[in-house]
């Protein structure tokens, strides 16, 4: 029900923030999407779409950071199975750089 999928914004039309719509590509499928809730969206951005509405703009930097932590885990796994994991996700309280 809360299913929402990422897609790439092709175009944005409309001036009034609540009336802005546009096309979003999900692979080869293109759908019309309401942009009322992502006022700063621009063509080329990726958005998460739920029941016809974009509800969030994807943050590439945050995505790279989280995947980078997993790369460190992969490296740690290949280097040593016995050692404690030296480079993983930050423990609670540590912020992202």
């Amino acid at each position, binding site marked *: 029900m809360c299913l*929402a999928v990422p897609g790439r914004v092709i175009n944005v039309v409309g001036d009034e923030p609540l009336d802005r719509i546009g096309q979003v590509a999900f692979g080869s499928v293109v759908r019309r999407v309401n942009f009322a809730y992502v006022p700063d969206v621009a063509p080329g951005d*990726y958005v998460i779409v739920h029941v016809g509405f974009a*509800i969030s703009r994807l943050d590439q930097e945050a995505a790279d*950071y989280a995947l980078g932590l997993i790369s460190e885990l992969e490296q740690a796994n290949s280097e040593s199975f016995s050692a404690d994991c030296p480079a993983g996700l930050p423990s609670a309280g540590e912020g992202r750089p």
Partner: protein
Amino acid sequence: MKYVEEYRDGARVKALAQAIGRVVTRPWCIMEVCGGQTHSIVKYGLDQLLPGGLDLIHGPGCPVCVTPTEKIDTAVWVSQQPNVILCSFGDMLRVPGSSEDLLTIKARGADIRIVHSPLDAVAIARQNPEREVVFFAVGFETTAPANAMAVYAARRQALTNFSMIVAQVLVPPAILAILQAEDNRVQGFLAAGHVCSIMGTNEYELIAATHRVPIVVTGFEPVDILQGILMCVRQLEVGTSALENQYARVVRPEGNSPAKALVAEVFEIVGSGWRGLGELAGSGLALREVYQSYDAELRFPGPCSVTARPSTCQAGAVLTGQIKPPHCPAFAKACTPEHPLGAPMVSTEGACAAYYHYRRRSIDGVVPVPEFTVS
């Protein structure tokens, strides 16, 4: 597809599962709140990659599943009123009411239409000014902005033939109910990423602090879920109880401000009934007074007496994580997706449907081929 494939990558899944195996030293119970997460866990066999003793409890995060029978009965009744077109997300049509479901009524001739967005229902109202168009507005916080926009748009377009049956519920009161239950086993939560993309993380930070329980806002792909579990077990092992955000590519701490603003403009917070959890204070949304002319339950006042059918279905126990679907005596016998006794067998995000689709053969003794393997 970008932002999908990298989160289904076998090497990353393996690295995370190995890291979880190294971190865990004791048994732990973690609840994934959202039905979308349950679906991924069961579909990809993620629970089978975890060390023994690390138990995933499936939460109540499926709006279709928790919508009480009374609301289904209301929709069934409204759809049979003269001149009505009832619009609904497809999932709701098969959910059993106390005596009938919407699909049966539709087969008997009621004009019930499946829509993919609440705005589709507004468009149908605009195109059919001589008909009464009613939208069955089911959902959690994720869907509330879309449902709010439908009412807001109908009012701006001066449509007088549009209304909605509101069955909107809020997640934090359900988490609190689970934590406060006497037999609660949940020690950490994976919070629902898309709900938090709207609401932000404040409410969860408060729950984590006051109930001393780690909460990790988590996405829906295999890599997301295992990373969320790793973050959660790391906290459990060292005894911290903070709010963390695994799904930062989508969820900002403040949530989606324009969406929250329109939800607050259209809806107010009220008590609501949940299948499995009962009546929970402050857990639902209702139309504010200024929008009450769009309330289908006021427009079509009808009988609301419910006579529960005797049933072996244990949906309530499944929804609160007390049992797993195969432990229900009706599972895959009296209750199947074709003939569901309870809502969790209907929705693709229902735990019973997920087990039926992906685990039934293994329950019958056929070992499925795992999606991922961890050597």
